[in-house]
């Protein structure tokens, strides 16, 4: 999986900025995508490309349980969010709904990856290659259940 980075160098990017509350009444996935990240980056929708990755600090997706948040990112083209840590409901919604991959990275990778870098993510090897900088980072391996649900393609396709 290859893509370019949109980096937000901040912690606690919450669901109110990923998809503001006023849009919770919307359930058209493509319409939600037009409001993704509106709370901190009004230009997100115009700059995001299919296959891009978001890189951010700790506790990404904290706040509400709105599945609108991973849906809006996923329908904007985001394939993975790489963060120092994730809030639990965002993490779970991303995986169970098969919207995007929530990938935990370490401080060194977080600081080294820059906006616009091209990354190649290999979840089998738990490896992230920075093709722009010719560097390699480790991602934190998915736990057993998360790995199985991702491999199945979401909770409904997973056979316990």
């Amino acid at each position, binding site marked *: 999986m290859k893509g370019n980075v949109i980096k937000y160098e901040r912690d*606690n990017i919450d669901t109110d900025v990923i998809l503001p509350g006023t849009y919770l009444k919307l359930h058209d996935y493509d319409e939600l995508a037009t409001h993704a990240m509106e709370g901190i980056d009004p230009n997100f929708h115009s700059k995001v490309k299919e296959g891009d990755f978001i890189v951010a600090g700790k506790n990404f997706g904290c706040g*509400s*349980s*709105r599945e*609108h948040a991973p849906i809006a990112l996923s329908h904007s083209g985001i394939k993975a969010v790489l963060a120092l*840590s994730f*809030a*639990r409901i965002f993490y779970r919604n991303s995986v169970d709904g098969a919207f995007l991959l929530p990938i935990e990275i370490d401080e060194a990778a977080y600081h080294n990856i820059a906006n616009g870098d091209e990354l190649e993510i290999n979840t089998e090897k738990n490896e992230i290659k920075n093709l722009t900088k010719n560097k390699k980072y480790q991602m934190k391996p998915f736990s057993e259940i998360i790995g199985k649900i991702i491999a199945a393609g979401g909770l409904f396709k997973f056979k316990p």
Partner: protein
Amino acid sequence: MNITEKILARASGSKRLSPDDVVFVNVDKVMLHDVSGPGVIKVFDKLKKQGISVDKLWDPSKVWVAEDHFVPSAEKVSAENIVKLSNFTKNYGIEKHFKYGLGQYGICHTLSHEEALVLPGEVYVGGDSHTNTTGALGAFACGLGHTDVAYILLNGKIWFKVPETILFKLNGKLPAHVMAKDFILKIIGDIGTDGGAYKAMQFSGNGIDEMSVEERLTLTNMTTEAGAKNGIIEADQKVIDYLETRGATNFTPIHGDSDANYSKTFEYEASEMEPIVAKPFSPENISVVREAPSVELDKAYIGSCTGAKLEDLEAVAKILKGKKVKIRTEILPAAISIYKKALEKGLIKIFLDAGVTVGPPTCGACCGAHMGVLAKGEICISTTNRNFPGRMGHVESQTYLASPLVVAASAVTGKITDPRDLN
């Protein structure tokens, strides 16, 4: 095992569970509202296209539905969502649907305790992050997204990783000017908005025993703001009495073992507690009220699952009685049953005499939906639970979170005010 482990063990048929064990758990109760309901309907539509049957639910008697976020319907999209929700409950035979304009209705988390919809020892999941609230009744209560709730509606079970539990002990009774809201803000200030992430946050000690059930609900409610999977308090006689007066008698509370494990224990002395505010833009950004910045407030908001229960309104009335508010102030009781009790106790008259606008139960402006959202640059003090950028309206508005006593005192002065400093 502690109470969270014991409930999950009971519900998964496991003899013993420890943190990090992954289990499929049979769910006792499920809640949907006017945001997560249409979200689940959308998931059902997707499943149908994939050839997965969504003809009937695993057990409609265990499902209940609230209308709270965008009601009374804010505009035509939310009106259509309410129609969708009504069709959904009709088609699937869900009888417990609390509709606005038809008797009792209110914020989902408030209904969970007001209507005794969830009982001690149960596994309760809801399509809303503040589902944690109901853990104050001694249940495992946890918020989930649309896909997970849809899965439960069809299968009756869901996977959980058993959380480790942090124990928060309160020694002594909180002073009269301090509320549970101050205590939970203090805790979030200490551990941070990810301090409880993926964990259970349990409250105990004689300070909790002394606390009313409604105040305990404020504690568990805001475990969500610390990132917790669930907040929980073992049910005592107060909880049993509370549920009995609401018609629920058939339940068996679960208690942790005396040798239960807690990953960490925090102890607090009630006598040292002070009124607290969380400043913009995070619930962890706390300050003692007397050291809070001297800002000119534009609005005071008393509402939400966190801060519009009957005792919250009583605290506000205690302050506002015979006074006038200096800034725009809204009070939205969290459920019709609470509104009615407030009316019977004369609280609504006190609010109206003080110049307050009293509105219907709704999540309203707490989540920036409608009913008093903030304009660019406006500063609000609120009994609600979050103050991230844009939470209550414009991304450049600001929200200070505080207890009902502090919000009421601040409404009178127009500045952030400790209730002890109000003449």
